[in-house]
């Protein structure tokens, strides 16, 4: 059973602290939901864990099964068992989905193991069928010309084939219609097992109706300020985050920069 431990994680970009001491433990078999207002660092947390080169960790540790990930490259983290279903999956022109997913699956094989191509094709076809993605998927270029919903389903398809031990799903519900959300929800729920820890980043209850979380965390200004169970979801859905800000004594966002004069308009004086 995998275990992801995030210990006192502090991350800043251009002198601005964007993750301010995150502590979180996710075990295989658990489903965590991270919610919070826009711009509070939820997606940044997922990107930092995945090792995006834009972010530098000032302090803290990320451990997967006791192994420190901080110094690992992005691909090493993936091969160690992490997966990030991205909010805006990137288009890779000219590279077919088949070549891309096959190379990714191959990369996760242990040394000495070889990909059995026939078996892989069947698995890809099955996964596409389960996600109702149509038959031409394998020969389409990665995410190019995909609708928003197709892109998100393609992320889940990769997750099904790569079989990570810890997966972040970053706003996997955005851009999905009701039917597509149900399909994604069913597929992710079917993957739940003691071998997979899930972290769902979302704004909406509707995703968490499909993929039921065990823990709900609320992030505000780069911190996890409250952790609870499913009861938190309904409260946020009904009342937003204002009650929490009041409860925790968090001020509204204050513009710290001083206003700068852009100069004066031309004036005309009458003499």
């Amino acid at each position, binding site marked *: 059973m995998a275990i992801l431990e995030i210990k006192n994680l502090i991350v800043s970009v251009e002198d601005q602290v964007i993750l301010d001491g995150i502590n979180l433990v996710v075990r295989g078999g658990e489903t965590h939901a991270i919610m919070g207002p826009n711009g509070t660092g939820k997606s940044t947390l997922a990107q930092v864990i995945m090792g995006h*080169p834009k972010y530098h960790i000032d302090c803290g540790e990320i451990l997967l099964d006791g192994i420190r990930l901080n110094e690992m490259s992005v691909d090493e983290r993936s091969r160690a068992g992490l997966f990030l279903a991205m909010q805006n999956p990137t288009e890779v022109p*000219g590279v077919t989905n088949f070549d891309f997913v096959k190379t990714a699956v191959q*990369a996760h094989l242990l040394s000495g193991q070889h990909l059995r191509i026939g078996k892989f094709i069947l698995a890809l076809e099955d996964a596409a069928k389960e996600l109702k993605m149509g038959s031409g998927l394998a020969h389409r270029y990665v995410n190019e010309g995909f609708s928003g919903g197709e892109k998100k389903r393609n992320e889940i398809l990769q997750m099904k084939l790569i079989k990570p031990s810890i997966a972040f799903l970053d706003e996997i519900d955005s851009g999905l219609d009701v039917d597509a959300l149900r399909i994604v929800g069913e597929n992710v729920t079917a993957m739940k097992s003691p071998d997979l820890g899930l972290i769902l980043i979302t704004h909406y209850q509707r995703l968490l109706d499909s993929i039921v979380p065990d823990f709900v965390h609320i992030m505000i200004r780069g911190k996890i300020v409250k952790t609870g169970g499913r009861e938190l979801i309904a409260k946020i859905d009904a009342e937003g985050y204002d009650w929490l800000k009041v409860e925790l004594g968090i001020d509204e966002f204050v513009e710290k920069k001083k206003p700068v004069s852009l100069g004066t308009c031309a004036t005309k004086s009458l003499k």
Partner: protein
Amino acid sequence: MKIPQCFVDKNATIVFGKKSVEYQGNYPGIRITNDGWSIQVANQKQWKNPITMVMKGQKTPANLYIHLKTGISASFSIYYLVNPDWANVGLFVKLDAGAKLTLNNVFIGKYNSNFMVNRVITQADTSEVDLSSGIVVSGNTKIVDHYELNGEKSRLSAVLLAISGQKEIFSSIQEVFHNRPVSQSNVTNLLVSAGKSQMHVDVTETIGKGNFQSICHQNNRGIILEEKGSITVEPKLIIDEYDVDAGHGCAIGQINANELYYLLSRGIDETTAKRLIISGYLTPLYKRIDNPGFLKILSRTIELQMKGNDC
């Protein structure tokens, strides 16, 4: 360079050897000239498309003249198996009114001295050319293209893909002349600089006075894989007519960081990820090659070129 097995014993393959045509199938109108070979296509039924031509001869200059008569449609793949002694090759294509040509032109191999390619395409009324070129050779290369759109409603689409490795110098001069109204051209250059190679492309498209409603566009993209490589592009439009649609663009840079991150996040190591992204970049060329055997040779050569080895 020997003829790869994939070209041998094919009925639709014409191999131009040192002083003779070695395999011809049953195509009339091929002549040996003082400076190369000449092909005249006058009868559609006698030329079944697509036709593969392999240039392996050591004639210098090794020129190929192709003339498509009125209304003829042809699809040629011409592979130049460049050998170390070659210096100059020429391809001169003439299309009469209404003729249509799909031409894949691939140069692959290694040579000792500077290698120069001259190509001239002349088009009459309503003729169409769809040209796709791939240049994957070891050594300094200069390619000079001259396109004359001499017919009304003539149309040209030209895609050039060049990969340079090691310390090579690649230069390409492309000139497109819109000499008649309602003519169209679309020029695309895809460049990959591996190692310390220097690549330079100069594209000039000219629409003269009176050639109204002509359309000319050019798009140039370059990827520099290593710090010491360089790509420069000079896209130019010379327009002397108001009623036209013209535009040019150029983007040169390293491999797209977002694409790379996305592939890495799936566990693909950096070298493989870069290779995959570049292969995607080369897809316009790969898609045009209908010979799977040659496609394997080409992709292996490209891989060697990107690693800094000789082709």
